[in-house]
């Protein structure tokens, strides 16, 4: 195995505007091998945009993104061979069966068809989806579909994982399995970059947390480091503090009063 601080991913001064609106305001990030990075932030902070840029889905950004030592702006897609991606809203080709989809994705990653099939089957077995492997994805529940997408991102044994909301729709047991998979993969030297809104989980499994607010990194470090910086005890507390959100109680009270029908200022 290579040295532990080999740089996998490096982002320098990443900015991006979108229809006149500045979505990313100069992000700097260095990621080395074996890290599990929880990428968190309020809705619309630019998390998914960053991930999309790194995957080459968006190319009119400014700044420099280097993955596995290759500047991705060259347009050469070969670096994606070592990346696994779980998209944000479980998008897949729904008319295909789980097996067809997985084999297709495996083949896109350059795997042999028989090999992809065998591997997909044994992974489906682990997730207890083997009985529905020939059913269409459109008939799957959100959690089942999410599991298929997670498998599809791992078929080719990638070195870097981008998981956008990987736990949405999963039940508590599956979440524990995924959590365990993440930490074991990281031990194997994989680098994992995931975003989530479930703070307890991020707190538990990440060894580094990056908090994004308004397209800027406002906190970056292990949970313990973040705790030292702020006085809050939990990650959601830190999250609230750093995003400048303190009036949740008043907000909720106001919301409920509107629900009740008090027309105080409506």
């Amino acid at each position, binding site marked *: 195995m290579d040295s532990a601080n080999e740089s996998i991913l490096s982002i320098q001064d990443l900015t991006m505007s979108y*229809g006149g609106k500045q979505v990313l305001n100069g992000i700097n990030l260095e990621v080395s091998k074996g890290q599990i990075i929880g990428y968190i932030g309020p809705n619309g902070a630019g998390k998914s945009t960053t991930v999309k840029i790194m995957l080459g889905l968006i190319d009119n950004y400014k700044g420099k993104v280097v993955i596995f030592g290759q500047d991705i702006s060259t347009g050469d*897609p*070969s670096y*994606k061979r070592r990346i696994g*991606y779980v998209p944000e809203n479980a998008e897949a080709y729904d*008319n295909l069966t789980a097996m067809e989809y997985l084999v297709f994705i495996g083949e*896109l*990653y350059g795997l042999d068809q028989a090999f992809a099939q065998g591997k997909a089957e044994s992974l489906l077995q682990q997730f207890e989806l083997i009985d529905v492997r020939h059913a269409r994805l459109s008939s799957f529940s959100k959690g089942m579909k999410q599991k298929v997408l997670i498998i599809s991102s791992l078929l080719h044994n990638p070195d870097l994982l981008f998981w956008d909301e990987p736990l949405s729709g999963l039940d508590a047991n599956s979440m524990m399995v995924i959590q365990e998979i993440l930490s074991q993969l990281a031990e194997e030297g994989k680098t994992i970059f995931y975003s989530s809104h479930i703070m307890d989980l991020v707190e538990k499994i990440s060894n580094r947390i990056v908090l994004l607010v308004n397209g800027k990194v406002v906190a970056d470090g292990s949970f313990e480091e973040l705790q030292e910086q702020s006085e809050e005890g939990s990650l959601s507390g830190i999250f609230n503090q750093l995003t400048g959100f303190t009036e949740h109680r008043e907000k909720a009270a106001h919301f409920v009063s509107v629900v009740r029908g008090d027309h105080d200022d409506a």
Partner: protein
Amino acid sequence: MREFKSLKFIALFKGLFRRFGVDYEVMMLILRIKLTMDERRVPTVFNEMGKKKEGNQFLKSLWIYGIYSLLLLPFLFIGENYIFQMSIMFGMILFILMTSMIADFTSVLLDVRDKNVLQTKPVDKKTITVAKTIHILIYMSFVTGAFVALPLFVGLYRHGPLFSLIFLGEIILAMLLVVVLTSLLYLFVLRYFDGERLKDIINYVQILLSVGLIVGYQVLIHAFEFTNLNITYSFSWWHYLIPPIWYGAPFEMILNGNTAGHMIAFTALAILVPIVAILVYSRLMPSFERNLEKMLSDTKSRKPGRHLLDEFWAKLLCRSKEERVFSDFQH
């Protein structure tokens, strides 16, 4: 997954794709998956029929184009005035192809899932673009085939092999022109608008185009003068703007030996415009893909407009609250 005959045909051009730097194996892989999915897509009309239909519904609806094509046949029998006959025929062909393209393939062209599924994989953009275009072309050839087969054979019988040869060549050019023009049109629309607005605009474009094509017919027919059932053609500069006439000209030029300057110019346009359009299209494709991202997001907020007149009618005509809700919902 079964093998597709259309893919076997495409396999004949393996070398050509390789020459253009397309990853042939990956392209075939994508096409096979796309065609498999198309077989399973049930058109909304059939959803309520309860019965589960197998096979590609689109291919099963092709016979209708065969019936449409009967309309073209009379024009093959009214003499040798090719510039008139063939301009009208190509007017119809372009109309059918364009409307079918907009009605059936907008979803293929604007599919945003492709981005997440394909573009995140180690597949280069050129291969994805070519696969997408070939996917559309496969279906367009089916539509064109169904629409043109009958006239082609009748033409062969009536006007001889040279006629059919020109016809075939021009059909391919016309098909390319339609596919590329539609894509360029969307490209243009996508450039200036975003999100939800874009989907509305595409609807408007679809309507406008249909209207435009009908109006175009009138313009086309006015290029000819009818006197006592004799149809004569006299050239004006604006004829350069009417594509069907471009496609009528080669017949006139080759079969009737009419080598007037404008005939040659029309022929040149018929051949060059599709080729130039393809070149422009391939140059602009990256920005098209980029703008496609807009389909996923809706960044602009807009004010809901109040429709006073609608509200008035709703109040007047709908007695219960429920009725009014549905009336409002329609707008």
